[in-house]
């Protein structure tokens, strides 16, 4: 059904480092390696879950991909173009196709703007401004006008000059002048702004509201008049109004109550199917991730440690960190008795992460090599990627690991 090799987004070696300043001369005293070299591909039309604990860099990935913060290194290809290379002008039309929904529905909405205006804002940003509309017509005329002197000039020259070499040179010069203007016109065109009337904007806002299950009458209300769940719907509508193909959802349900959370999750699933969206769903809650995502990437301290399809990951988690993470999640069934893996200590600081495998300081299975060499993220079978020295392709078959058996107990008997 989905073309498995059709990647809408391809992240290669992405690094985002933040410098810490200090001292008398405000020198860099340390570097927070929030994201430290990750590769990730997102297929068209899939929901990719990015899961990890606070401080693992998952939110930073989401923002760096949309260029909301600057990446230190790496490439991010969106529809084949490297986003990190784009100038503001060429980035703008791409931005329209990529949207973001934030975690906190309260603080991400302007309290003094009616939600109709909030949703329409995106359209207005990308709209060809009114004064520019006649200008674009003017440019079209200019393009035509450059052709006229070329034509007239050629006729005039033809009479005056006999020397064909000079004639050729002059035609060349005139031609380049004309193409300069054409390029100028094309440059204007490249901002990709759309010509849209106010009534069309209104219609699009209403469409977006309807898609997220809100009503027409809501456009004239302020954010504080809505409940948390409704505000998150507004956030989604704001992203949808530009007809994006790719949306980053940064913890969109973690601030919501469980009964509201389920409403929003169902909505996201429906929208993804109806509008054929590609979603990068960032969350810390494994259960939510499992419910929504087709494929899941697990992050730990700025690195991706495991990527697999939903079925594969939850049936057969491989990385020791993923196993611990899953076993730590409380299951709402008092009869399930699991052997828990309780990790010792805190997550190390990204300012000074452990060498080699970053998980080795807390890993139960760590061996000597884990502190010496960093394990690469490799395919250990069926597209299940894992970065662990102890999980090699030949060892991919079930190892009788406790978590594996634990999880089969969890599934309905």
């Amino acid at each position: 059904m989905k073309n498995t090799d059709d990647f809408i987004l391809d992240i290669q070696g992405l690094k985002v480092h933040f410098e810490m300043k200090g001292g008398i001369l405000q020198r860099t005293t340390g570097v927070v390696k929030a994201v430290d070299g990750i590769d990730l591909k997102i297929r068209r039309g899939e929901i990719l879950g990015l899961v990890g604990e606070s401080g693992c860099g998952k939110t930073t990935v989401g923002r760096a991909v949309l260029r909301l913060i600057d990446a230190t290194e790496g490439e991010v290809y969106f529809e084949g173009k490297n986003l990190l290379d784009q100038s503001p002008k060429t980035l703008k039309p791409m931005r329209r196709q990529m949207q973001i929904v934030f975690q906190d529905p309260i603080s991400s909405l302007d309290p003094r703007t009616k939600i109709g205006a909030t949703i329409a804002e995106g359209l207005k940003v990308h709209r060809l401004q009114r004064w520019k509309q006649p200008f674009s017509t003017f440019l079209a005329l200019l393009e035509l006008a450059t052709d006229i002197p070329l034509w007239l000039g050629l006729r005039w020259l033809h009479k005056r000059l006999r020397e064909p070499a000079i004639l050729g040179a002059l035609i060349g010069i005139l031609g380049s002048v004309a193409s300069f203007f054409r390029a100028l016109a094309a440059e204007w065109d490249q901002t990709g702004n759309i010509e849209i009337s106010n009534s069309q904007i209104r219609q699009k806002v209403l469409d977006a509201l309807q898609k997220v299950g809100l009503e027409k009458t809501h456009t004239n209300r302020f954010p504080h008049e809505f409940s948390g769940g409704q505000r998150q719907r507004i956030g989604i509508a704001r992203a949808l109004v530009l007809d994006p193909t790719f949306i980053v959802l940064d913890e969109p349900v973690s601030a919501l109550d469980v009964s509201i959370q389920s409403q929003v999750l169902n909505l996201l699933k429906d929208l993804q199917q109806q509008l054929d969206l590609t979603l990068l769903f960032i969350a810390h809650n494994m259960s939510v991730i499992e419910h929504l995502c087709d494929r899941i990437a697990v992050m730990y301290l700025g690195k991706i440690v495991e990527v697999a399809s939903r079925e594969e990951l939850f049936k057969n988690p491989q990385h020791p960190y993923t196993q611990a993470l899953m076993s730590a999640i409380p299951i709402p069934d008092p009869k399930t008795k699991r052997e828990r893996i309780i990790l010792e200590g805190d997550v190390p600081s990204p300012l000074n992460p452990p060498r080699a495998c970053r998980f080795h300081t807390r890993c139960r299975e760590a061996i000597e090599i884990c502190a010496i060499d960093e394990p690469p993220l490799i395919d250990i079978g069926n597209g299940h990627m894992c970065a662990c020295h102890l999980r090699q392709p030949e060892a991919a078959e079930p190892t009788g690991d406790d978590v594996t058996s634990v999880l089969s107990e969890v599934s309905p008997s």
Partner: protein
Amino acid sequence: MTGYILRRLILAIPVIIGILFFTFALTRLLPSDPCRQQLQEHATEAVCREFNRRHGLDQPIPEQFRRYLGDIARGDFGDSFEYGYSVSRLMVERFPRTLELTVYAMLFAIIVGVPLGIISAYYHHSAIDVGTMVGANLGVSMPVFWLGLMLAYVFGVLLKDTIFWLPPGGSGVDTRPFYEVWGLSVEASETSIWTFIAHMDTLNPLLGGNLAGFWDNFRHMILPMAALGTIPLSIIARMSRSSLLEVLGQNYVRTARAKGVRERGVVFKHAFRNAMLPVVTIIGLSFGSLLSGAVLTETVFGLSGVGDALFSAITGRDYTVVQAFTIVIAIIFVFVNLVVDILYVFLDPRIRLE
């Protein structure tokens, strides 16, 4: 810690150089000529040429600035055109009184303002709270000179012949310099630190054990102090109130109560220190407006301090005096704010010292 202080001191250097430059430039940019202002009808061409030569005013402006910086580096602020003696001596004569007035006003503002703020925050929405805040708003909006005149009228004129009477102007009796009382054989030149301290109206008699003299001089300070301190008092009261209100709603205050800390402990131990953080900043900042307010207050109450001298220096184009006082006031302001920042570090461990 020392690194932090050092960094702050180094950062203060460009500020002070900037101040030096601007005060120099501003005085030179003023129209009119110091010779005419000073000598009035005696200012003939020949006299003025001599006047300018003696004060270095015949030199080109960059040369004047160069000399000026060199002199300041040697601690020489030059001579006053008007008084005919060194600005340093004028400063030693005048500055102690202004300093005392400012410090008293500041203490008055803090000692009254902080408790008022605490009380109104604790009894939020009560009559005390509303009353205090109405008073504070009035206090902020009253000009110093008007308040000064009103206070002088009420306490000096209306309440005359009652025990509430306070002198409406001037300073108290002269007292013997404390070092003479102590029998110290110090060489108190006109610009020495001894003379500086001896010029403090209330500190000098106190050091000299002359309580009557202290009381008389202090009584003369009360009205100027109240007039000058009212604006910062109001600001401090409002700030303490809103800050404490915010802190009382914090999670750790709830924790303190849940631990069984009594109300008094909750307010004074857990909330107070946190609530004082923004207030300390405000105190530092209002010190600047206090110094400038002191100029007006001294004029109203006829105290001969810096304000008085600065006022006549500005009108008389007495460049050296204007420059010197501006620089000293600016440096004090920079220094006070440096102290505030360092205090902040002690109060709030979250501020990193690097």
